[in-house]
């Protein structure tokens, strides 16, 4: 007895072959996703329940989690990382936006200024950081010597826990060229007639910026903020190099360099992760740190996406 159900096979087979074809086309992406994202994520969760020294593996349940929760270095490094997200990222974005706005206003020599502002971002991270630490050396650095010449006693930039993160922020602002170029492109894309119309309506510069510029560049702002936050959560090289150079300590027989100098103020969570996994051979514990970073990145990204969506809707 025929039934409507039996009439379905043709389209179903077609759909299946379509699905298979789609899967084949998507396979390079899926393989990449599995190998570089899903597998590492599952492996990280798996290792976090184990004592893993890169050679031997032993299940220890929640011991790594319990230890991490009590480890004051974890909380110190997490707080430092949070500081960078809250202060360094906005400082970078505002500075980059300010420079980009400035470049749109300059009538002559814009190309020269654009090049000057962009150049620092081309300097290798390690070289730039070492140069910065030397310039800001309280005893021999040029910055404090210039300040002293005008009667100001400069701070102990990278040697004082109160100044070390602001000093890193200055370094980050100095190398803001890439973000500046993205903002500049977005600003130059804003249709001029919008400003002309607003001007005729009597809107001042601030009103024009708030009501035209910001909404028009908000997708770029959102992109830069989210990537900036993720970058800050992964902050490693500059903090490690600045800390090592400023401390003057090195690894030699019976002597090890402790990241985070001064007083752990430059210890970021990724550095602590690296230290735990590759210096202390505690890969299980490092996996817990990695999961903390993953969760933090997810939470920040979701909050930012929500905030930007609300701002869009409000407009």
């Amino acid at each position: 007895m025929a039934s409507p159900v039996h009439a379905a096979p043709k389209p179903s087979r077609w759909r299946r072959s379509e699905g298979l074809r789609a899967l084949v086309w998507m396979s390079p992406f899926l393989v990449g996703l599995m190998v570089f994202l899903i597998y590492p994520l599952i492996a990280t969760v798996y290792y976090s329940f184990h004592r893993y020294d890169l050679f031997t593996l032993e299940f220890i349940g929640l011991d790594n989690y319990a230890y991490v929760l009590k480890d004051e270095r974890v909380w110190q490094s997490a707080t430092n990382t949070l500081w960078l997200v809250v202060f360094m990222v906005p400082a970078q974005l505002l500075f980059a936006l300010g420079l980009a706005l400035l470049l749109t206003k300059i009538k002559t020599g814009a190309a020269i200024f654009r090049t000057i502002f962009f150049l620092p971002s081309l300097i290798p991270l390690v070289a730039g950081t070492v140069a910065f630490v030397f310039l800001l050396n309280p005893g021999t650095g040029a910055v404090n010597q210039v300040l002293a010449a005008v009667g100001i006693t400069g701070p102990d930039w990278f040697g004082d826990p109160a100044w070390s993160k602001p000093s890193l922020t200055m370094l980050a602002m100095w190398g803001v060229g890439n973000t500046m170029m993205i903002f500049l492109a977005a600003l130059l894309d804003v249709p001029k007639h919008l400003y002309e119309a607003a001007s005729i309506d009597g809107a001042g510069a601030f009103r024009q910026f708030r009501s035209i510029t910001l909404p028009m560049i908000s997708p770029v702002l959102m992109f830069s903020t989210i990537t900036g936050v993720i970058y800050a959560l992964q902050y490693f090289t500059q903090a490690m190099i600045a800390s090592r150079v400023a401390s003057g300590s090195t690894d030699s027989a019976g002597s090890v360099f402790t990241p985070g100098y001064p007083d752990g103020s430059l210890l970021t969570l990724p550095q602590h992760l690296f230290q735990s996994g590759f210096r202390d051979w505690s890969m299980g514990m490092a996996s817990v740190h990695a999961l903390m970073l993953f969760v933090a990145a997810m939470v920040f990204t979701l909050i930012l996406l929500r905030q930007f969506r609300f701002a869009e809707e409000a407009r």
Partner: protein
Amino acid sequence: MRFIPLAVAGLSALVLTACTTGKEAGPSLGAPKPSGASSQALPPATLELWHGFSTDAEVKAFEDAIAGFNKKFPQIKVNAKKGIQDDQITAAIRGGKAPDVAASFTTDNVAQWCSSGAFQDLTPVIKSDGIDLTVLPAASRSYTEFQGKRCMMPLLADAYGMFYNKALMKGEQPPKTLSELTELTKKLTVRDADGNIKVAGFMPSTQYYENSPSHLGPMTGAKWYNEDGTSAIGSDPAWKELLTWQKDLVDWFGYEKLEKFRKSLGDEWGAEHPFFEGKVAMVLDGEWRTAMIANDPEAKSLDYGTAPLPVSDTKPDLFGSGFTAGSVIGVPRGAKNPQHAWELVKHLTTDTESLVTLSNALRNVPTTKAAAESPNLSDDEKFKTFLDIFSHPKTSTLPANINSVFNQDVFSTFLIQWEKGAVKDLDAGLKDVDKRINDKMKLSGG
């Protein structure tokens, strides 16, 4: 949805593959084989040797030592790869691409390499070859084995003592006790009208270059670990004695003044080293500094002397001892030619001529008694101080520990707080250091 079980199975396979990474074993060392003539009858082979030396002079010295091995074993070719760090060695062993022989500049990873089996236990071949390890000082034996597994041999050693600038000493002899050091430091320190330090007699800060707790500890005979491997820092009164002395001297300088001076000093490894520039009269340093001074165009004319470190006033028998550690060498798991590799390790670490060649070129301490007493060892009074320190029976080391880097980190971090005056109760602070080290030890399965 049908793909989900497949995906889960695939991922499980990947995870399991990862879990077994590094468990592939190559031919293992230890089949008892007498050395000597029968060892020289080993079949031809090409060995891969990884080491951390990188400058032309270092590489040449190492190649000269290998040339001596080639004379004994012409059928064995050695390909030496320079500038290798520990991370690369570990990664290669995990990936099943281990070299036949690997050397490391630090002893910090020895415990992990031994306990995990990343490096092969040399005990059977040492026994079968009849090697008497008492030719090595106890300290060198201690940093090359872990829990009865000897997976490394000491290659060259570093010994730490005192360097003093004769011009700045104002005719004084180097101090022998901590109270003499304090007295002399105060006498030799020069300040300007504002109290800023211009010349320091001695830098008591643990943040100053080589003043790590490991290097300072032997001055009072301080121990890192108890017999059971737990931390002895909080219970060994020698640490309290050392730190109390050190803090008194820091306070005499004034922590702020001392830090300001420390931060104004040049790079430890450059030509602007404060000892070279006459900014510090007495420094704790390793024997390798003698070569650095000799090779520096400006510092080579420096009139300086070397001496053992001053010791606790109540433990004069410690005088002459110091800290030692050094480079280590072994046969990784997965080495293609382990028996050939052992012959090379044995040659580099026990052959007197080879050790003397390396020591003369690199100005590091040779590890065996025969090499240290060899007439071919370059005669140098300043360097001899360190040979004597190395062979002193009370010379100590940082014994191999599964959390070696972590333990040093924790203690060094505490010491910074201590010397700046942020620790009010030293006993409680040291107990806390113990707790942190022991907690981590438990987590690491130690």
